[in-house]
Protein backbone atom coordinates (compact mmCIF):
# COMPACT_ATOMS: atom_id res chain seq x y z
CA UNK A 1 0.00 0.00 0.00
CA UNK A 2 1.30 3.41 -0.83
CA UNK A 3 1.82 5.62 2.16
CA UNK A 4 -0.26 8.74 2.38
CA UNK A 5 1.14 12.06 1.36
CA UNK A 6 3.01 14.04 3.95
CA UNK A 7 2.66 17.79 4.02
CA UNK A 8 -0.87 18.11 2.80
CA UNK A 9 -2.23 18.04 6.35
CA UNK A 10 -0.60 21.42 6.96
CA UNK A 11 -2.53 23.05 4.15
CA UNK A 12 -6.02 24.48 4.44
CA UNK A 13 -9.04 23.07 2.69
CA UNK A 14 -9.13 25.82 0.09
CA UNK A 15 -5.50 25.25 -0.84
CA UNK A 16 -6.06 21.50 -1.09
CA UNK A 17 -8.88 22.20 -3.48
CA UNK A 18 -6.59 24.28 -5.66
CA UNK A 19 -4.03 21.49 -5.66
CA UNK A 20 -6.67 18.99 -6.64
CA UNK A 21 -7.63 21.27 -9.54
CA UNK A 22 -4.18 20.60 -10.95
CA UNK A 23 -5.02 16.92 -11.14
CA UNK A 24 -3.28 15.78 -7.98
CA UNK A 25 -4.58 13.43 -5.36
CA UNK A 26 -4.13 14.78 -1.87
CA UNK A 27 -5.77 11.97 0.04
CA UNK A 28 -5.11 8.35 -0.81
CA UNK A 29 -2.27 7.79 -3.22
CA UNK A 30 -3.87 4.82 -4.86
CA UNK A 31 -3.85 5.25 -8.61
CA UNK A 32 -0.52 7.06 -8.43
CA UNK A 33 2.85 5.40 -8.87
CA UNK A 34 4.63 7.98 -6.78
CA UNK A 35 4.31 11.45 -5.35
CA UNK A 36 6.37 14.50 -4.60
CA UNK A 37 5.34 17.68 -2.79
CA UNK A 38 7.30 20.86 -2.38
CA UNK A 39 5.66 23.79 -0.59
CA UNK A 40 7.66 26.99 -1.11
CA UNK A 41 11.22 25.75 -0.59
CA UNK A 42 10.32 22.86 1.74
CA UNK A 43 10.18 19.34 0.44
CA UNK A 44 7.48 17.49 2.32
CA UNK A 45 7.14 14.27 0.51
CA UNK A 46 8.89 12.03 -2.01
CA UNK A 47 7.84 8.43 -2.45
CA UNK A 48 7.21 5.81 -5.05
CA UNK A 49 6.09 2.20 -4.86
CA UNK A 50 7.00 1.16 -8.39
CA UNK A 51 9.91 -1.15 -9.00
CA UNK A 52 12.72 0.47 -10.96
CA UNK A 53 11.44 3.98 -10.41
CA UNK A 54 12.89 6.40 -7.92
CA UNK A 55 11.72 9.84 -6.89
CA UNK A 56 13.85 11.88 -4.55
CA UNK A 57 14.77 15.40 -3.62
CA UNK A 58 17.45 16.87 -5.86
CA UNK A 59 19.81 17.52 -2.94
CA UNK A 60 19.53 13.89 -1.80
CA UNK A 61 19.96 12.61 -5.34
CA UNK A 62 23.13 14.65 -5.89
CA UNK A 63 24.57 13.17 -2.70
CA UNK A 64 23.51 9.64 -3.48
CA UNK A 65 24.50 9.44 -7.15
CA UNK A 66 27.74 10.98 -8.33
CA UNK A 67 26.79 10.20 -11.92
CA UNK A 68 23.91 12.65 -11.70
CA UNK A 69 26.48 15.36 -12.43
CA UNK A 70 26.28 14.17 -16.05
CA UNK A 71 22.65 15.33 -16.13
CA UNK A 72 22.69 18.27 -13.73
CA UNK A 73 22.57 21.52 -15.78
CA UNK A 74 23.44 19.60 -18.92
CA UNK A 75 20.20 20.11 -20.89
CA UNK A 76 19.52 23.61 -19.59
CA UNK A 77 22.61 25.83 -19.28
CA UNK A 78 23.16 27.44 -15.88
CA UNK A 79 23.80 30.85 -17.36
CA UNK A 80 20.92 30.82 -19.85
CA UNK A 81 19.14 33.76 -18.27
CA UNK A 82 18.46 35.43 -14.94
CA UNK A 83 16.05 32.67 -13.95
CA UNK A 84 18.57 29.84 -14.38
CA UNK A 85 21.26 31.97 -12.78
CA UNK A 86 19.04 32.61 -9.78
CA UNK A 87 18.42 28.89 -9.33
CA UNK A 88 22.06 27.91 -9.93
CA UNK A 89 23.20 30.30 -7.23
CA UNK A 90 21.08 28.64 -4.57
CA UNK A 91 20.85 25.42 -2.60
CA UNK A 92 19.38 22.67 -4.84
CA UNK A 93 15.59 22.26 -4.57
CA UNK A 94 13.18 20.22 -6.61
CA UNK A 95 13.07 16.56 -7.52
CA UNK A 96 14.79 13.86 -9.48
CA UNK A 97 12.88 11.01 -11.05
CA UNK A 98 14.80 8.06 -12.36
CA UNK A 99 13.06 5.31 -14.33
CA UNK A 100 15.53 2.48 -14.71
CA UNK A 101 16.00 0.51 -17.89
CA UNK A 102 12.77 -1.14 -18.99
CA UNK A 103 10.71 0.03 -16.00
CA UNK A 104 7.15 1.13 -16.47
CA UNK A 105 4.61 3.03 -14.44
CA UNK A 106 1.11 1.69 -14.53
CA UNK A 107 -0.17 4.83 -12.90
CA UNK A 108 1.13 8.36 -13.31
CA UNK A 109 3.62 9.84 -10.90
CA UNK A 110 2.43 13.08 -9.41
CA UNK A 111 4.52 16.03 -8.42
CA UNK A 112 3.22 19.17 -6.84
CA UNK A 113 4.91 22.51 -6.50
CA UNK A 114 2.91 24.75 -4.24
CA UNK A 115 3.46 28.38 -3.53
CA UNK A 116 2.15 29.41 -0.11
CA UNK A 117 4.14 32.53 0.73
CA UNK A 118 4.69 35.84 -1.01
CA UNK A 119 8.12 34.93 -2.21
CA UNK A 120 10.05 33.31 -5.02
CA UNK A 121 9.73 29.57 -5.13
CA UNK A 122 12.40 27.88 -7.18
CA UNK A 123 12.84 24.30 -8.29
CA UNK A 124 15.21 22.32 -10.39
CA UNK A 125 13.84 18.99 -11.59
CA UNK A 126 15.58 16.23 -13.46
CA UNK A 127 13.66 13.40 -15.08
CA UNK A 128 15.59 10.48 -16.46
CA UNK A 129 13.94 7.66 -18.38
CA UNK A 130 16.53 5.03 -19.21
CA UNK A 131 16.38 2.74 -22.22
CA UNK A 132 12.90 1.34 -22.83
CA UNK A 133 11.39 2.91 -19.71
CA UNK A 134 7.92 4.40 -19.73
CA UNK A 135 7.05 7.22 -17.41
CA UNK A 136 3.87 9.24 -17.07
CA UNK A 137 4.17 12.36 -15.04
CA UNK A 138 1.58 14.81 -13.86
CA UNK A 139 2.83 18.04 -12.43
CA UNK A 140 0.50 20.35 -10.65
CA UNK A 141 1.62 23.87 -10.02
CA UNK A 142 -0.57 25.95 -7.79
CA UNK A 143 -0.49 28.84 -5.38
CA UNK A 144 -2.41 29.53 -2.24
CA UNK A 145 -5.41 31.84 -2.42
CA UNK A 146 -3.57 33.92 0.17
CA UNK A 147 -0.44 34.40 -1.91
CA UNK A 148 -0.49 37.88 -3.33
CA UNK A 149 2.85 38.53 -4.97
CA UNK A 150 4.72 35.31 -5.44
CA UNK A 151 6.83 34.01 -8.27
CA UNK A 152 7.82 30.55 -9.39
CA UNK A 153 11.14 29.85 -11.10
CA UNK A 154 11.63 26.38 -12.45
CA UNK A 155 14.21 24.43 -14.36
CA UNK A 156 13.29 21.00 -15.67
CA UNK A 157 15.64 18.72 -17.54
CA UNK A 158 14.19 15.68 -19.22
CA UNK A 159 16.36 12.86 -20.52
CA UNK A 160 14.39 10.42 -22.63
CA UNK A 161 16.56 7.40 -23.40
CA UNK A 162 16.56 5.02 -26.31
CA UNK A 163 13.07 3.54 -26.89
CA UNK A 164 11.86 5.28 -23.74
CA UNK A 165 8.63 7.22 -23.47
CA UNK A 166 7.90 10.12 -21.19
CA UNK A 167 4.63 11.98 -20.98
CA UNK A 168 4.59 15.12 -18.94
CA UNK A 169 1.27 16.73 -18.17
CA UNK A 170 1.42 20.07 -16.42
CA UNK A 171 -1.67 21.81 -15.12
CA UNK A 172 -1.25 25.33 -13.78
CA UNK A 173 -3.49 26.81 -11.13
CA UNK A 174 -1.72 30.01 -10.19
CA UNK A 175 -3.19 33.17 -8.82
CA UNK A 176 -3.88 36.47 -10.53
CA UNK A 177 -0.77 38.07 -9.07
CA UNK A 178 1.71 35.25 -9.59
CA UNK A 179 4.55 35.27 -12.10
CA UNK A 180 5.84 32.00 -13.45
CA UNK A 181 9.05 31.30 -15.32
CA UNK A 182 9.61 27.65 -16.17
CA UNK A 183 12.69 26.74 -18.18
CA UNK A 184 12.68 23.27 -19.57
CA UNK A 185 14.55 21.17 -22.11
CA UNK A 186 14.07 17.56 -23.10
CA UNK A 187 16.78 15.52 -24.75
CA UNK A 188 15.35 12.60 -26.65
CA UNK A 189 17.47 9.68 -27.84
CA UNK A 190 16.85 7.05 -30.53
CA UNK A 191 13.16 6.23 -30.99
CA UNK A 192 12.40 7.95 -27.71
CA UNK A 193 9.02 9.65 -27.36
CA UNK A 194 8.41 12.83 -25.43
CA UNK A 195 4.87 14.12 -25.02
CA UNK A 196 4.38 17.35 -23.19
CA UNK A 197 0.94 18.64 -22.32
CA UNK A 198 0.32 22.01 -20.82
CA UNK A 199 -2.99 23.25 -19.50
CA UNK A 200 -3.56 26.71 -18.07
CA UNK A 201 -7.21 27.65 -17.63
CA UNK A 202 -6.87 29.71 -14.47
CA UNK A 203 -5.58 33.30 -14.35
CA UNK A 204 -1.90 34.01 -13.72
CA UNK A 205 -0.30 37.43 -13.90
CA UNK A 206 2.46 36.24 -16.14
CA UNK A 207 3.66 32.92 -17.49
CA UNK A 208 6.75 32.96 -19.62
CA UNK A 209 8.15 29.75 -20.99
CA UNK A 210 9.53 28.23 -24.12
CA UNK A 211 10.22 24.53 -23.50
CA UNK A 212 12.48 22.82 -25.99
CA UNK A 213 12.81 19.25 -27.16
CA UNK A 214 16.08 18.30 -28.72
CA UNK A 215 15.58 15.19 -30.81
CA UNK A 216 19.08 13.78 -30.88
CA UNK A 217 18.37 10.16 -31.68
CA UNK A 218 17.12 8.67 -34.93
CA UNK A 219 13.35 8.35 -35.06
CA UNK A 220 12.82 10.41 -31.90
CA UNK A 221 9.39 11.97 -31.47
CA UNK A 222 8.19 15.06 -29.62
CA UNK A 223 4.73 16.39 -29.29
CA UNK A 224 3.75 19.49 -27.36
CA UNK A 225 0.08 20.22 -26.75
CA UNK A 226 -0.95 23.41 -25.03
CA UNK A 227 -4.40 24.51 -23.97
CA UNK A 228 -4.65 28.02 -22.59
CA UNK A 229 -7.16 30.58 -21.47
CA UNK A 230 -6.14 34.18 -20.82
CA UNK A 231 -8.54 36.12 -18.64
CA UNK A 232 -8.24 39.91 -18.23
CA UNK A 233 -4.93 40.75 -16.56
CA UNK A 234 -3.24 37.49 -17.54
CA UNK A 235 -0.30 37.36 -19.87
CA UNK A 236 0.72 33.96 -21.16
CA UNK A 237 3.89 34.16 -23.19
CA UNK A 238 4.37 30.56 -24.08
CA UNK A 239 5.76 28.47 -26.83
CA UNK A 240 7.53 25.29 -27.64
CA UNK A 241 10.50 24.45 -29.75
CA UNK A 242 11.69 21.25 -31.37
CA UNK A 243 15.15 20.70 -32.75
CA UNK A 244 15.11 17.92 -35.31
CA UNK A 245 18.72 16.87 -35.11
CA UNK A 246 18.57 13.23 -36.21
CA UNK A 247 17.23 11.28 -39.15
CA UNK A 248 13.57 10.33 -38.89
CA UNK A 249 12.86 12.75 -36.03
CA UNK A 250 9.35 14.17 -35.97
CA UNK A 251 7.71 16.89 -33.94
CA UNK A 252 4.30 18.39 -33.60
CA UNK A 253 3.47 21.55 -31.67
CA UNK A 254 -0.23 22.04 -31.08
CA UNK A 255 -1.88 24.97 -29.35
CA UNK A 256 -5.44 25.94 -28.57
CA UNK A 257 -5.70 29.39 -27.11
CA UNK A 258 -8.64 31.46 -25.93
CA UNK A 259 -8.67 34.98 -24.64
CA UNK A 260 -11.46 36.63 -22.72
CA UNK A 261 -9.43 39.80 -22.34
CA UNK A 262 -5.89 38.69 -21.54
CA UNK A 263 -2.82 38.33 -23.71
CA UNK A 264 -1.48 35.15 -25.24
CA UNK A 265 1.72 35.03 -27.19
CA UNK A 266 1.95 31.63 -28.75
CA UNK A 267 5.38 30.93 -30.11
CA UNK A 268 6.56 27.89 -31.93
CA UNK A 269 9.81 26.98 -33.58
CA UNK A 270 10.85 23.83 -35.39
CA UNK A 271 14.36 23.56 -36.70
CA UNK A 272 15.04 20.83 -39.25
CA UNK A 273 18.79 20.50 -39.50
CA UNK A 274 19.10 16.99 -40.94
CA UNK A 275 17.46 15.00 -43.74
CA UNK A 276 14.32 12.94 -43.41
CA UNK A 277 12.73 14.95 -40.62
CA UNK A 278 9.21 16.23 -40.24
CA UNK A 279 7.58 18.90 -38.16
CA UNK A 280 4.27 20.68 -37.91
CA UNK A 281 3.01 23.64 -35.89
CA UNK A 282 -0.69 24.19 -35.39
CA UNK A 283 -2.06 27.11 -33.44
CA UNK A 284 -5.74 27.87 -33.28
CA UNK A 285 -7.10 30.68 -31.23
CA UNK A 286 -10.42 32.25 -30.37
CA UNK A 287 -10.92 35.80 -29.22
CA UNK A 288 -14.10 35.72 -27.18
CA UNK A 289 -13.71 39.21 -25.72
CA UNK A 290 -11.19 41.84 -26.78
CA UNK A 291 -7.72 40.68 -25.84
CA UNK A 292 -4.53 39.87 -27.66
CA UNK A 293 -3.56 36.66 -29.38
CA UNK A 294 -0.22 36.84 -31.08
CA UNK A 295 0.81 33.64 -32.81
CA UNK A 296 4.41 33.42 -33.93
CA UNK A 297 5.03 30.10 -35.63
CA UNK A 298 8.50 29.66 -37.06
CA UNK A 299 9.72 26.82 -39.20
CA UNK A 300 13.33 26.69 -40.17
CA UNK A 301 14.67 24.11 -42.60
CA UNK A 302 18.35 23.82 -43.31
CA UNK A 303 18.64 20.78 -45.54
CA UNK A 304 16.93 19.09 -48.46
CA UNK A 305 14.25 16.60 -47.40
CA UNK A 306 13.05 18.12 -44.17
CA UNK A 307 9.34 18.65 -44.26
CA UNK A 308 8.05 21.48 -42.12
CA UNK A 309 4.67 23.17 -42.04
CA UNK A 310 2.59 25.43 -39.89
CA UNK A 311 -0.94 26.69 -39.65
CA UNK A 312 -2.24 29.38 -37.41
CA UNK A 313 -5.72 30.79 -37.17
CA UNK A 314 -7.14 33.48 -34.95
CA UNK A 315 -10.84 34.13 -35.07
CA UNK A 316 -14.21 33.98 -33.42
CA UNK A 317 -16.78 31.24 -33.14
CA UNK A 318 -18.58 30.82 -36.43
CA UNK A 319 -22.21 32.00 -36.27
CA UNK A 320 -23.39 29.12 -38.46
CA UNK A 321 -22.01 26.61 -35.94
CA UNK A 322 -23.84 28.32 -33.09
CA UNK A 323 -27.09 28.40 -35.08
CA UNK A 324 -26.66 24.75 -36.06
CA UNK A 325 -26.61 23.70 -32.43
CA UNK A 326 -29.40 26.11 -31.54
CA UNK A 327 -31.56 24.40 -34.17
CA UNK A 328 -31.06 21.26 -32.09
CA UNK A 329 -32.46 23.03 -29.06
CA UNK A 330 -29.35 24.39 -27.33
CA UNK A 331 -29.51 27.99 -26.14
CA UNK A 332 -26.95 30.42 -27.52
CA UNK A 333 -24.84 30.16 -24.36
CA UNK A 334 -25.01 26.37 -24.33
CA UNK A 335 -24.12 26.24 -28.01
CA UNK A 336 -21.17 28.58 -27.49
CA UNK A 337 -19.85 26.59 -24.53
CA UNK A 338 -20.25 23.33 -26.44
CA UNK A 339 -18.31 24.66 -29.41
CA UNK A 340 -15.52 26.02 -27.20
CA UNK A 341 -15.33 22.72 -25.37
CA UNK A 342 -14.92 20.98 -28.71
CA UNK A 343 -12.33 23.54 -29.82
CA UNK A 344 -10.22 22.75 -26.77
CA UNK A 345 -10.56 19.02 -27.20
CA UNK A 346 -7.12 18.06 -28.34
CA UNK A 347 -6.90 14.30 -28.18
CA UNK A 348 -3.43 13.45 -27.06
CA UNK A 349 -2.49 10.04 -28.34
CA UNK A 350 -0.44 7.92 -25.99
CA UNK A 351 -1.72 9.60 -22.88
CA UNK A 352 -3.22 7.39 -20.15
CA UNK A 353 -6.94 7.86 -19.77
CA UNK A 354 -6.65 9.14 -16.21
CA UNK A 355 -4.46 12.00 -17.38
CA UNK A 356 -6.75 12.83 -20.27
CA UNK A 357 -9.56 12.96 -17.74
CA UNK A 358 -7.57 15.37 -15.58
CA UNK A 359 -7.06 17.64 -18.56
CA UNK A 360 -10.77 17.46 -19.36
CA UNK A 361 -11.64 18.27 -15.77
CA UNK A 362 -9.40 21.35 -15.80
CA UNK A 363 -11.16 22.56 -18.94
CA UNK A 364 -14.61 21.76 -17.55
CA UNK A 365 -13.86 23.76 -14.42
CA UNK A 366 -13.09 26.82 -16.52
CA UNK A 367 -16.10 26.42 -18.79
CA UNK A 368 -18.32 28.68 -16.73
CA UNK A 369 -16.02 31.59 -17.43
CA UNK A 370 -16.46 31.47 -21.21
Amino acid sequence: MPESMKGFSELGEEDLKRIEMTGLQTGSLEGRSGSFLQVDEHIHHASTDTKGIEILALSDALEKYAWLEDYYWKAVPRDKDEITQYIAAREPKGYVIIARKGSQTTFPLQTCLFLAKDDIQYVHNIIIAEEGAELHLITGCASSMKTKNGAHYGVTEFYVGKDAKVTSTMIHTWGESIEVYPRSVAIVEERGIFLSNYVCMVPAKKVQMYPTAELRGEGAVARFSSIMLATPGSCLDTGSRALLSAKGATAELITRAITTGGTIISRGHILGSVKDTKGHIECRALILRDGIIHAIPEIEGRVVDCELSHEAAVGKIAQDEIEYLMARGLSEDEATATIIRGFLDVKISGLPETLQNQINAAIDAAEKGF
Partner: protein
Amino acid sequence: MLVIEDLHVEVEGREVLHDINLTIKEGETHVLMGPNGSGKTTLLRAIMGFGSSRITEGSLIYKDHDITHLPIHERARLGIGLLFQRPPTVSGLKLGKLLAVTSGGDSERVDEYARHMNMDTFLERDINKGFSGGEIKRSEVLQLMIQQPDLVMLDEPESGVDLENMSLVGNAIAALVEKDKHIVNRKKSGLIITHTGYILDYIDADFGHVMCDGTFKCHGNPREILKSVQSKGYKECIECQRV
Protein backbone atom coordinates in the same frame (compact mmCIF):
# COMPACT_ATOMS: atom_id res chain seq x y z
CA MET B 1 -49.62 23.61 -37.12
CA LEU B 2 -47.85 26.34 -39.08
CA VAL B 3 -49.39 29.40 -40.63
CA ILE B 4 -47.20 31.68 -42.72
CA GLU B 5 -48.76 35.03 -43.54
CA ASP B 6 -47.46 37.57 -46.06
CA LEU B 7 -43.89 36.73 -45.25
CA HIS B 8 -41.08 38.89 -46.60
CA VAL B 9 -37.50 37.86 -45.92
CA GLU B 10 -34.21 39.63 -46.55
CA VAL B 11 -30.79 38.06 -46.96
CA GLU B 12 -27.82 40.43 -46.74
CA GLY B 13 -30.08 43.42 -47.26
CA ARG B 14 -31.78 42.05 -50.36
CA GLU B 15 -35.37 40.86 -50.33
CA VAL B 16 -35.32 37.19 -51.27
CA LEU B 17 -38.84 36.09 -50.30
CA HIS B 18 -42.00 38.06 -50.89
CA ASP B 19 -45.66 37.51 -50.10
CA ILE B 20 -45.30 33.97 -48.85
CA ASN B 21 -48.54 32.46 -47.57
CA LEU B 22 -48.70 28.84 -46.52
CA THR B 23 -50.67 26.77 -44.05
CA ILE B 24 -49.47 23.36 -42.93
CA LYS B 25 -51.95 21.40 -40.88
CA GLU B 26 -51.21 18.68 -38.39
CA GLY B 27 -50.33 15.43 -40.14
CA GLU B 28 -49.72 17.03 -43.52
CA THR B 29 -46.57 16.74 -45.56
CA HIS B 30 -45.76 19.48 -48.04
CA VAL B 31 -43.15 19.43 -50.76
CA LEU B 32 -41.32 22.50 -51.97
CA MET B 33 -39.88 22.54 -55.47
CA GLY B 34 -38.30 25.23 -57.60
CA PRO B 35 -35.16 26.15 -59.48
CA ASN B 36 -31.85 26.80 -57.71
CA GLY B 37 -31.76 30.15 -55.99
CA SER B 38 -35.53 30.56 -55.92
CA GLY B 39 -35.62 30.94 -52.13
CA LYS B 40 -36.61 27.49 -50.86
CA THR B 41 -33.74 27.14 -48.40
CA THR B 42 -34.22 30.76 -47.29
CA LEU B 43 -37.83 29.94 -46.39
CA LEU B 44 -36.81 26.97 -44.24
CA ARG B 45 -34.09 29.03 -42.58
CA ALA B 46 -36.55 31.85 -41.89
CA ILE B 47 -38.97 29.41 -40.27
CA MET B 48 -36.10 28.04 -38.15
CA GLY B 49 -35.08 31.59 -37.24
CA PHE B 50 -31.57 31.99 -38.65
CA GLY B 51 -30.15 35.48 -38.33
CA SER B 52 -29.15 35.66 -41.98
CA SER B 53 -32.77 35.17 -43.12
CA ARG B 54 -34.29 38.31 -41.68
CA ILE B 55 -38.06 38.57 -41.61
CA THR B 56 -39.08 42.12 -42.60
CA GLU B 57 -42.83 41.68 -42.93
CA GLY B 58 -45.49 39.14 -42.17
CA SER B 59 -45.74 36.54 -39.47
CA LEU B 60 -45.08 32.93 -38.54
CA ILE B 61 -47.66 31.31 -36.29
CA TYR B 62 -46.72 27.88 -35.00
CA LYS B 63 -49.13 25.92 -32.78
CA ASP B 64 -50.86 29.23 -32.00
CA HIS B 65 -47.57 30.87 -30.89
CA ASP B 66 -46.28 33.86 -32.77
CA ILE B 67 -42.73 32.70 -33.42
CA THR B 68 -41.82 35.43 -35.92
CA HIS B 69 -39.13 36.86 -33.66
CA LEU B 70 -38.37 33.93 -31.38
CA PRO B 71 -34.75 32.74 -31.06
CA ILE B 72 -33.82 29.54 -32.89
CA HIS B 73 -33.53 27.28 -29.86
CA GLU B 74 -36.97 28.24 -28.58
CA ARG B 75 -38.47 27.28 -31.93
CA ALA B 76 -36.56 24.00 -31.74
CA ARG B 77 -37.88 23.39 -28.24
CA LEU B 78 -41.41 24.05 -29.45
CA GLY B 79 -40.93 21.21 -31.91
CA ILE B 80 -39.50 22.61 -35.13
CA GLY B 81 -36.64 20.59 -36.59
CA LEU B 82 -34.46 21.11 -39.66
CA LEU B 83 -32.38 18.70 -41.69
CA PHE B 84 -29.55 20.82 -43.05
CA GLN B 85 -28.52 20.51 -46.64
CA ARG B 86 -24.95 21.51 -45.86
CA PRO B 87 -24.42 21.60 -42.12
CA PRO B 88 -21.23 23.17 -40.75
CA THR B 89 -18.38 21.11 -39.31
CA VAL B 90 -17.94 21.66 -35.59
CA SER B 91 -14.35 20.71 -34.85
CA GLY B 92 -13.85 18.79 -31.63
CA LEU B 93 -17.58 18.25 -31.05
CA LYS B 94 -18.31 14.56 -31.27
CA LEU B 95 -21.58 13.52 -32.88
CA GLY B 96 -22.20 11.27 -29.87
CA LYS B 97 -21.64 14.17 -27.47
CA LEU B 98 -24.24 16.33 -29.23
CA LEU B 99 -26.72 13.46 -29.27
CA ALA B 100 -26.09 12.86 -25.57
CA VAL B 101 -27.08 16.49 -24.93
CA THR B 102 -30.13 16.55 -27.21
CA SER B 103 -31.37 13.17 -25.98
CA GLY B 104 -31.12 14.31 -22.38
CA GLY B 105 -28.50 11.65 -21.68
CA ASP B 106 -30.52 8.73 -23.03
CA SER B 107 -27.56 6.72 -24.30
CA GLU B 108 -29.64 3.63 -24.99
CA ARG B 109 -31.84 5.49 -27.43
CA VAL B 110 -28.81 7.17 -29.02
CA ASP B 111 -27.09 3.81 -29.53
CA GLU B 112 -30.20 2.17 -30.90
CA TYR B 113 -30.94 4.92 -33.42
CA ALA B 114 -27.27 5.25 -34.36
CA ARG B 115 -27.11 1.55 -35.16
CA HIS B 116 -30.33 1.85 -37.12
CA MET B 117 -28.86 4.63 -39.25
CA ASN B 118 -25.49 2.87 -39.62
CA MET B 119 -23.88 5.72 -37.77
CA ASP B 120 -22.70 3.89 -34.66
CA THR B 121 -19.07 4.11 -35.78
CA PHE B 122 -19.42 7.87 -36.23
CA LEU B 123 -20.39 8.76 -32.67
CA GLU B 124 -16.77 9.42 -31.70
CA ARG B 125 -16.08 11.54 -34.75
CA ASP B 126 -16.20 15.31 -35.03
CA ILE B 127 -19.58 16.26 -36.31
CA ASN B 128 -19.65 16.43 -40.15
CA LYS B 129 -15.85 16.44 -40.37
CA GLY B 130 -14.86 14.40 -43.39
CA PHE B 131 -18.39 12.96 -43.68
CA SER B 132 -19.47 12.06 -47.21
CA GLY B 133 -22.71 13.49 -48.60
CA GLY B 134 -24.64 10.39 -47.61
CA GLU B 135 -23.08 10.26 -44.15
CA ILE B 136 -24.07 13.87 -43.54
CA LYS B 137 -27.69 13.05 -44.41
CA ARG B 138 -27.70 9.97 -42.18
CA SER B 139 -26.22 12.00 -39.35
CA GLU B 140 -28.82 14.71 -39.86
CA VAL B 141 -31.69 12.22 -39.91
CA LEU B 142 -30.27 10.58 -36.78
CA GLN B 143 -30.21 13.95 -35.01
CA LEU B 144 -33.85 14.54 -35.97
CA MET B 145 -34.80 11.06 -34.78
CA ILE B 146 -33.45 11.98 -31.35
CA GLN B 147 -35.07 15.42 -31.48
CA GLN B 148 -38.47 14.10 -32.67
CA PRO B 149 -39.76 17.41 -34.01
CA ASP B 150 -43.45 17.95 -34.70
CA LEU B 151 -42.71 20.04 -37.77
CA VAL B 152 -40.01 18.26 -39.75
CA MET B 153 -38.27 20.47 -42.29
CA LEU B 154 -35.94 18.73 -44.70
CA ASP B 155 -33.62 20.54 -47.09
CA GLU B 156 -32.89 18.13 -49.93
CA PRO B 157 -32.71 14.98 -47.85
CA GLU B 158 -31.77 12.79 -50.80
CA SER B 159 -28.86 14.79 -52.23
CA GLY B 160 -25.59 12.89 -51.99
CA VAL B 161 -27.25 9.71 -50.76
CA ASP B 162 -26.34 6.61 -52.76
CA LEU B 163 -28.99 4.12 -53.89
CA GLU B 164 -28.10 1.64 -51.20
CA ASN B 165 -28.74 4.16 -48.42
CA MET B 166 -31.71 5.87 -50.05
CA SER B 167 -34.23 3.44 -48.63
CA LEU B 168 -32.66 3.70 -45.17
CA VAL B 169 -32.88 7.50 -45.25
CA GLY B 170 -36.27 7.50 -46.99
CA ASN B 171 -37.87 5.11 -44.53
CA ALA B 172 -36.41 6.92 -41.53
CA ILE B 173 -37.85 10.18 -42.82
CA ALA B 174 -41.21 8.51 -43.42
CA ALA B 175 -41.17 7.45 -39.76
CA LEU B 176 -40.30 11.01 -38.67
CA VAL B 177 -43.48 12.30 -40.33
CA GLU B 178 -45.43 9.26 -39.10
CA LYS B 179 -46.25 7.88 -42.54
CA ASP B 180 -46.44 4.50 -40.85
CA LYS B 181 -49.50 5.71 -38.94
CA HIS B 182 -53.01 5.96 -40.27
CA ILE B 183 -53.83 9.35 -41.67
CA VAL B 184 -56.18 10.28 -38.85
CA ASN B 185 -53.56 9.48 -36.21
CA ARG B 186 -50.74 11.49 -37.75
CA LYS B 187 -49.61 14.35 -35.54
CA LYS B 188 -46.39 15.27 -37.31
CA SER B 189 -46.06 17.54 -40.27
CA GLY B 190 -43.39 17.88 -42.92
CA LEU B 191 -42.01 20.55 -45.20
CA ILE B 192 -39.57 19.06 -47.66
CA ILE B 193 -37.37 20.58 -50.35
CA THR B 194 -36.66 18.15 -53.15
CA HIS B 195 -35.15 18.43 -56.61
CA THR B 196 -35.25 14.83 -57.69
CA GLY B 197 -38.45 13.74 -56.03
CA TYR B 198 -36.86 10.46 -54.94
CA ILE B 199 -38.12 11.09 -51.45
CA LEU B 200 -41.69 10.87 -52.79
CA ASP B 201 -41.14 7.12 -53.22
CA TYR B 202 -41.04 6.85 -49.42
CA ILE B 203 -43.51 9.45 -48.33
CA ASP B 204 -46.74 10.29 -50.04
CA ALA B 205 -46.66 14.03 -49.74
CA ASP B 206 -50.02 15.73 -49.53
CA PHE B 207 -49.28 19.05 -51.19
CA GLY B 208 -46.75 20.43 -53.59
CA HIS B 209 -45.61 24.03 -54.05
CA VAL B 210 -43.43 25.55 -56.73
CA MET B 211 -41.30 28.51 -55.80
CA CYS B 212 -39.77 30.88 -58.35
CA ASP B 213 -38.02 34.21 -57.67
CA GLY B 214 -38.89 34.15 -54.01
CA THR B 215 -42.57 33.50 -54.21
CA PHE B 216 -44.99 30.63 -54.80
CA LYS B 217 -45.95 30.13 -58.42
CA CYS B 218 -48.35 27.26 -58.04
CA HIS B 219 -49.72 24.69 -55.67
CA GLY B 220 -50.98 21.25 -56.43
CA ASN B 221 -50.49 17.52 -56.34
CA PRO B 222 -46.79 16.90 -55.69
CA ARG B 223 -46.54 13.96 -58.13
CA GLU B 224 -48.12 15.95 -60.92
CA ILE B 225 -45.90 18.95 -60.30
CA LEU B 226 -42.86 16.70 -60.31
CA LYS B 227 -43.92 15.05 -63.53
CA SER B 228 -44.42 18.37 -65.25
CA VAL B 229 -41.08 19.72 -63.99
CA GLN B 230 -39.33 16.56 -65.08
CA SER B 231 -40.68 16.85 -68.62
CA LYS B 232 -40.65 20.61 -69.11
CA GLY B 233 -38.35 22.02 -66.45
CA TYR B 234 -39.17 25.19 -64.53
CA LYS B 235 -39.30 27.41 -67.61
CA GLU B 236 -43.07 27.31 -67.76
CA CYS B 237 -43.35 27.98 -64.04
CA ILE B 238 -41.13 31.03 -64.34
CA GLU B 239 -43.22 32.39 -67.20
CA CYS B 240 -46.50 31.38 -65.61
CA GLN B 241 -48.48 34.37 -64.29
CA ARG B 242 -51.09 32.35 -62.44
CA VAL B 243 -50.64 32.35 -58.70
